[in-house]
């Protein structure tokens, strides 16, 4: 017998006072109400008779006391939670994964309205077949997982959670759902004495993973199922027909901006060739239609030419049904039959260049590309003292201010670039070094994209000591030479060397960057990343559910967002002019405006060939290959590679997994044990044998598994205590009446 006290020490002390109080009360003299009667003659006679039964009276009083003490005692015992090791026959622990991705909208589900409804029906049937000792959990997944119901034996709760599951238009990513399932199937357990919510330390328990899906997810090879035995329950048909739009955009002709070209890519994921019309609407009005012939499994382009000088909303629809709703061609998924885009007004950025004269920068800011998006104003450093500057700096009128060998007294409400100078606060510089030898460049940063600057020559420069949170974009032998630091929603790019230096003879080049090809690209990157320039005329498109960030004039505090449903809401503009939009599950056009002035638009489309590929996969791969007993055939691509490299190339598992298998000696090449460095040839068969897992699979199929649990008696003790309480009440009321 073991105990798990439910109370703290001081609480036990308080409980201990209760029986003492009960006993004391019994021994305290009863307070009796005095009452004058004509004579106690007859009462005395009456009581005399009772005195004969005083023993019974005393016993009756003692019985009440005994019952009350028993109730308190049983309650205290229940609070001690006595228990003993026990074995629970637990048949099944089920983890049910329900696919709610876009492809589950497909209507090839027989009597069910969609694959999603078919999957729900199958899960419902499975829940109905559960025994009282089975427990199950339900997780809905698309590109993220949502636990609808954690482990429970309550079938009604499971059914309610199943009813709460909703179809989405998101793509599929099984990985998160598997991690959630594995984590919840065997949560970490601790053991702490005296903790009422203690769970005993236990090994991971086996569980059956049921995946209700149409298989529209890539193989997941970097996940170890462990004690989860996975079963894939497919919904849908293997020969579902579908045509889908997988890309759609519109661009203005840069030569003739009033001419717009719209282009769409359409695929046929079915097994039969299809010919269909694609209709283009502009602002809800018919513009054009084109006939598209699609062989099975092939895609085709659909170009359109339009004339529109302004912003416009475009919608492309595949005519898979006629006006009466009758199907013209077989198409099981509707959501990818419509695509949206918009022609947006070009967003130009206003750039203020503070310089005594910097021809390279001015030239770079006036290239054809830069000129399309940039409105440049050049001022001398003395302008910084003017009231005009102070006003524009304090109101954030400019999208970007470039300080060339100059610096303001106070930082403006704009992004900034400092060339050969420092911001007035938080930045420091080292000693002048010459020459400056660059040793590192952060190519991943958008500002440094497409740049090749290792051959850059810099005469002299000062290494930077940027504030905390900054990113070093260029590093020289003496220290960082270009860093980007955040500043309360804005960004400051500081270059530690000058492009042009002042000398007695005038301005001289301090670097040959301006004559390098990367220089105008660098300036354009700055315009895009720091200025927020958008040089494309097509609205950006996003996937359903993605969080979208749009850039608007940073002087605005709020903007209105109109969703495809027509709902309008007000959003806050963050410092820097960024607007974050979430909840983009619905496909269609989203537009930002302020007082009826259009600020920007973006579209949400499915554009997911994998989701549009409705052919139900017969086999999916989760975890190491051997679960599905797959043998990998080495092709010419892998020929000559080592076993490890070939397995990695064949997507047999992750690198650590493959290394572990090779070390354990469970990799077979053509049936024989393979070494890591053994080379493979075309036609070799690679396989991983995991005897332990195979045994584990067999064990899991043996049927009911005994699970060690803890039997507890507190419920029975409480029940008995309630029984005694009832008896005590009964006895007391009989005594009164």
């Amino acid at each position, binding site marked *: 017998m073991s105990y798990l006290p439910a109370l703290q020490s001081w609480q036990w002390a308080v409980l201990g006072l209760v029986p003492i109080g009960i006993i004391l009360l019994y021994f305290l003299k009863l307070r009796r109400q005095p009452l004058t009667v004509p004579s106690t003659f007859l009462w005395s006679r009456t*009581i005399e008779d009772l005195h004969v039964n005083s023993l019974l009276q005393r016993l009756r009083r003692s019985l009440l006391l005994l019952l009350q003490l028993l109730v308190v005692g049983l309650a205290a015992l229940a609070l001690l939670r006595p228990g003993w090791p026990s074995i629970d026959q637990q048949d099944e622990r089920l983890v049910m994964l329900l696919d709610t991705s876009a492809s589950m909208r497909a209507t090839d589900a027989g009597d069910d309205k969609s694959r999603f409804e078919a999957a729900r029906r199958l899960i419902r049937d499975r829940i109905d077949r559960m025994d009282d000792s089975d427990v199950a959990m339900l997780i809905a997944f698309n590109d993220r997982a949502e636990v609808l119901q954690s482990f429970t034996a309550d079938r009604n709760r499971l059914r309610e959670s199943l009813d709460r599951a909703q179809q989405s238009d998101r793509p599929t990513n099984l990985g998160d759902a598997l991690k959630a399932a594995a984590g919840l199937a065997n949560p970490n357990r601790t053991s702490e004495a005296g903790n009422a919510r203690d769970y005993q330390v236990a090994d991971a328990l086996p569980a059956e993973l049921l995946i209700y899906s149409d298989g529209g997810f890539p193989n997941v090879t970097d996940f170890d199922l462990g004690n989860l035995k996975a079963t894939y329950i497919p919904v849908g048909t293997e020969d579902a027909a579908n045509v889908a739009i997988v890309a759609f955009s519109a661009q203005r002709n840069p030569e003739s901006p009033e001419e717009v070209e719209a282009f769409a890519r359409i695929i046929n994921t079915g097994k039969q060739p299809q010919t269909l019309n694609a209709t283009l609407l502009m602002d809800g009005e018919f513009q054009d239609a084109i006939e598209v012939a699609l062989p099975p499994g092939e895609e085709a382009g659909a170009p359109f030419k339009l004339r529109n000088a302004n912003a416009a909303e475009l919608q492309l629809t595949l005519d898979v049904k006629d006006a009466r709703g009758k199907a013209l061609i077989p198409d099981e998924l509707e959501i990818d039959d419509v695509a949206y885009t918009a022609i947006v007004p070009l967003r130009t950025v206003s750039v203020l260049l503070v310089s005594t004269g910097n021809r390279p920068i001015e030239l770079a800011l006036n290239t054809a590309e830069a000129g399309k998006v940039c409105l440049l104003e050049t001022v001398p450093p003395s302008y910084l003292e003017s009231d005009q500057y102070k006003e524009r700096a304090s109101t954030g009128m400019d999208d970007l201010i470039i300080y060339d060998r100059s610096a303001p007294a106070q930082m403006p409400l704009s992004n900034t670039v400092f060339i050969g100078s420092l911001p007035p606060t938080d930045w420091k510089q080292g000693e002048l070094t010459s020459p400056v030898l660059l040793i590192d460049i952060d190519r991943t940063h958008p500002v440094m994209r497409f740049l090749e600057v290792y051959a850059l020559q810099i005469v002299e420069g000062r290494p930077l000591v940027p504030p905390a949170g900054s990113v070093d974009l260029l590093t020289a032998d003496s220290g960082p030479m270009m860093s980007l630091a955040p500043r309360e929603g804005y960004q400051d790019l500081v270059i530690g060397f000058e492009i042009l230096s002042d000398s007695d003879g005038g301005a001289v080049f301090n670097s040959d960057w301006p004559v390098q090809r990367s220089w105008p690209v660098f300036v354009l990157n700055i315009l895009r990343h720091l200025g927020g320039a958008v040089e494309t005329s097509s609205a950006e498109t996003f996937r359903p559910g993605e969080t979208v960030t749009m850039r608007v004039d940073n002087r605005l505090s709020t903007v209105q967002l109109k969703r495809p449903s027509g709902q309008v809401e007000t959003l806050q503009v963050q410092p820097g002019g960024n607007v974050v939009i979430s909840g983009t599950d619905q496909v269609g056009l989203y537009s930002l405006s302020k007082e009826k002035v259009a600020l920007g638009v973006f579209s949400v489309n499915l554009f997911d060939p994998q989701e549009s590929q409705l052919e139900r996969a017969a086999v999916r791969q989760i975890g190491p290959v051997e679960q599905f007993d797959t043998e990998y055939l080495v092709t010419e691509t892998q020929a000559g590679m080592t076993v490890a490299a070939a397995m990695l190339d064949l997507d047999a598992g992750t690198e650590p997994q493959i290394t572990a298998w090779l070390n354990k000696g469970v990799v077979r090449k053509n049936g024989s044990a393979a070494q890591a460095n053994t080379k493979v040839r075309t036609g070799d068969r690679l396989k991983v044998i995991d005897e332990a897992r195979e045994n584990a699979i067999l064990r899991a199929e043996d049927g009911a598994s005994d699970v060690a649990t803890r039997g507890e008696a507190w419920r029975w003790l409480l029940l008995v205590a309630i029984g005694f309480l009832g008896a005590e009440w009964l006895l007391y009321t009989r005594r009164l009446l």
Partner: protein
Amino acid sequence: MPAAATELLSPDLIARLERLELVSRQMFRGRMKGERRSSRKGQSVEFADFRNYVAGDDLRQIDWNLYARLDQLFLKLFLEEEDLHFYALIDASESMNFGDPTKLHVAKQLAACLGYVGLCRADRVKVAALGPTGNNAPVMRGKSNLWRMLQYLDSVQPGQNVSLYEGVKDFALRNSGSGIAVLITDLLDKAGYEQALRMLISRRMDVYVVHLLAPEELEPPLQGDLRLVDSEDGDLAEVTINRVLLERYKKTVNAFVDTAKSFCSRRSITYLLARTDMPVDEMVTRYLRERGVVR
């Protein structure tokens, strides 16, 4: 009529009482000629018996018819008519000062009723409270003394905590004549009532006991843990009133009543149990009449 009179006897009740008559089961020897039969043989019109003639007897008493038949001289004897002595004894102890109306008040009413009946019949009536105040009780005869009786009764206050025996003994010493004695009491004397009643019997009185109890004493509306205080001696009794105890109490009351009834019946005492919630006129004209106290 004084206000106290109307409290004790209403005009309507008085009118009805005038038609009643006290009933005695024995023949008593009174001091004056009244309307009662006496066992003393005397001169009256009612023939009682014969005896032989002896020299000196009144010749007018000789039954000549009997002489003619038997040739012997016999004298006729006649019952002498005598008046009745009526005593109403009221227990005025503190225990009688209970109920609404109080037992003492009802006792006074009863005594007034019975006393008036006797006064109407020219009986010798004395209504007295047991204890010292009984010494002041007037002896009355005739209806005109009604007011004196009522005046006395009005002066009787509760709290005469004299035991029944002492009270009766004192009465017996002061009143040597026999007659009808109606003892109106609750019999709740811890010293017992038996000696008192025996004393009355020894005076060869026609004893009636009216056992007067309030409804609250017969069915007490009490509950809970109580400390009962005796109104006469302050005695305490701690009780926890519940259904069981109440049933026991009622049994005790019934047993007490039965014991008193039994004691009385064995001694030719008429026992009457009366409740204070019974109207007095009904008690007298019906209840007492049914039991032969009045006719």
